[in-house]
């Protein structure tokens, strides 16, 4: 598994993420964060499970985009941005679906 130590590491996807349209066998949660219509390129999206249990976090991409590969279920999406800006959305996911969540903060 030499590749696992490098290209598919645990870090942030290069350049943040951009939104896509296909899920394949994954349960995908993705969307864009905007403020007054403009992408929020500096900030973080966190995926939380039951009881606010942390699941994953990504930095927002240049287009304000984020993407998670979750298990099927109910999640909370929390967005953090400079200036104390934050927002939360409830999300339902299932395999083979791309759940779109656009967030205006």
């Amino acid at each position, binding site marked *: 598994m030499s590749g696992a130590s490098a*290209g598919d590491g645990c870090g942030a996807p290069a350049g943040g993420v951009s939104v896509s349209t296909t899920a394949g066998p994954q349960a995908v949660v993705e969307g864009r964060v905007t403020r007054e219509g403009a992408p929020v390129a500096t900030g973080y999206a966190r995926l939380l499970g039951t009881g606010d249990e942390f699941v994953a976090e990504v930095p927002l991409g240049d287009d304000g985009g984020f993407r998670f590969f979750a298990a099927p279920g109910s999640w909370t999406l929390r967005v953090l941005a400079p200036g104390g800006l934050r927002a939360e959305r409830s999300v339902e996911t299932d395999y083979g679906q791309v759940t779109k969540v656009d967030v205006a903060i």
Partner: protein
Amino acid sequence: MSRSDVLVDADWAEAHIGAPGVVIVEVDEDTSAYDKGHIPTAIKLDWKKDLQDPVRRDFVDKTGFETLLSERGISNDDTVLLYGGNNNWFAAYAYWYFRLYGHDKVLLLDGGRKKWELDSRELSRDVPERPKTSYTASEQDASLRALRDEVIAAIGKRNLVDVRSPDEFTGRLLAPAHLPQEQAQRAGHIPTARNVPWSKAANEDGTFRSDHELRSLYEGEAGLDFGRDTIAYCRIGERSAHTWFVLHELLDLSNVKNYDGSWTEYGSLVGVPIELGEAR
């Protein structure tokens, strides 16, 4: 070691931008973050290109570490302040390398890149030029690194701390939820491991929780025996470097090792025991 010896806040970092003898280093897997803006005067280390062996599955060896630090202009006497994205995962991993190779004057920036950004502190695109040095590393400190046979021998005998998410621990996911789940190896965890996700050690802004909170997390909630030796692991060893930092550096426990082979190695081994579901 204690918290004040190893961890500094953003005000300290800001006050030491350009200070003689202090080198600020951003460590990331996604180094495009550095290119978009970094703490003024910071240089970058690419976790993959600079710190991993390009051929074998291992990290940079002693000679490679010496060459890298010499080229980047870091000397043995410098105080190295590390920070990065992903709540300092890769910065903590690099911190562990620095300690493995005997560099004691190394610090981690509390909250890393995230807190710096959320605080709207200054980011620069200027890439500093540092004169080359002649860095000398020590031999790897074996007391900080666990290899697979030691991990197998530790089942039921030492604290094994699996710092992945609960879904990875129980076997429902093979990778964190921000990554595709295409791994081929088996899911689950090492028998007798306790699951203490790395994220429980951090606040939302990426800073570490207080020593008191950390002690009650590991000793109280997770039931770790602080009198025993401990091995931390995750999937590829970087989240567990974050927990190694907590246990060995912040809480000053004496025998804590990071198993950098972690689940991508263990979950691919033939014939080793694997547990599924909740911790037993």
